[in-house]
């Protein structure tokens, strides 16, 4: 069960119109080689689920610049001027989601949960078109689960069974996204043999990971 593959093999599963989650926070923890693979193949009409749309030249930003994305679900788009521009021109639709709600919705999508009750966004436009419910005297929004066809993630290290270890703040959304996509592909800096990562040190269990590309090997 060696999940180590080449970047060419990975690209075969990319399809126009797919929904893609990409890990990272302002480009940190974003698998740039996997993003580049989408760019190279010009996979289009993507729905992108990300915490932010990066910068025009970093993170998932280039996917927006190249106009491969038709819909974005994100908490922040301010650092990539192209996102706002295309949104105002109505060439791109954007659903803005509070960052904590985004994390929970993705986690729900990967955990057999239909959604969560959160008070984040109560009294704001985030309420629009959502059900609300009172529990023990507090009003909550019902925020629904999110899933994707594909998750593109980045980790520091993997073993060949797909167990992942992340590095510092490059962890961010990667672990929850590993739960919530039909196909999970991870770019790692280093790949080691099974048994070289202590089970207690695994941050994302390999059973969630389908394919791994290693930068050392892929470049």
């Amino acid at each position: 069960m060696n999940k180590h593959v080449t970047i060419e093999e990975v690209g075969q599963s990319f399809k126009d119109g797919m929904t893609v989650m990409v890990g990272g926070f302002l480009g940190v923890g974003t698998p740039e080689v996997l993003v580049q693979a989408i760019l190279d193949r010009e996979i289009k009409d993507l729905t992108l689920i990300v915490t932010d749309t990066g910068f025009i030249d970093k993170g998932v930003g280039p996917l927006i610049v190249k106009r491969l994305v038709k819909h974005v679900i994100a908490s922040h788009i301010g650092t990539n001027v192209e996102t706002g521009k295309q949104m105002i021109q109505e060439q791109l639709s954007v659903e803005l989601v509070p960052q904590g709600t985004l994390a929970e919705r993705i986690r729900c999508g990967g955990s057999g949960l239909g959604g969560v009750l959160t008070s984040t966004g109560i009294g704001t436009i985030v309420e629009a078109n959502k059900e609300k419910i009172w529990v023990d005297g507090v009003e909550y929004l019902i925020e629904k689960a999110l899933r994707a066809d594909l998750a593109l993630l980045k980790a520091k290290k993997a073993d060949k069974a797909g167990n992942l270890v992340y590095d510092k703040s490059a962890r961010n959304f990667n672990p929850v996204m590993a739960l919530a996509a039909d196909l999970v592909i991870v770019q790692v800096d280093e790949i080691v043999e099974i048994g070289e990562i202590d089970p207690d040190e695994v941050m994302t269990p390999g059973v969630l990971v389908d394919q791994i590309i290693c930068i050392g090997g892929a470049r």
Partner: protein
Amino acid sequence: MNAKEIIARRVAVEMQDGDVVNLGIGLPTMVANYLPEGINVVLQSENGFVGLSSVGEVPDNNLVNAGGQHCGINPGGAVFDSAMSFCLIRGGHVDVTVLGGLQVDQYGNLANWMVPGKMVPGMGGAMDLVSGAKKVIVAMEHSAKDGSSKILKECTLPLTGKGKVNLLVTELGVFRVIPEGLLLEEIAPGVEVETVAARTEAALIISPNLKVMQNLASQI
């Protein structure tokens, strides 16, 4: 001392030793520079760790703050994923959050994430922070660049949080949100109450114990 420094200095007084604190990007970040002696706080970074510190000699590309800038992490810090980060934020494990503002009103409403038709950066983690932090402090300049008041009877911009602000600090004073409205508790040295009132659209309640803004006198 410029307006931002006045504000950051005063907000710093609100911190208690051992507090877990989340500082927004920009002016709020400056608060860390003015912590009183003996007050050590644990800074939470919403992208996934506690123990945020200034960047070391060799920047690490995998270690950035919530603004995407290189930073450091203190011994005793801890890294986690974004879900856990917001469990801490929403769950009341952050003692104080300091956020910037576009508008605050007398009901404790805050607007700081979009200007329709102009600027829609997104709310990032701000809505979760105002919703979940134990104490929400807004640190902002008193007036907009065009001179109009940012402290209103009612916010006109889309809200970040409804009735969640506890304290507002500007370069003119310190305002506590109470059920009756905005209570002016402290005023900047040399500023008249009338001046503050004139530059504030919201109705102000003047505290009978009105004081001079703390943590400034020795520096002026």
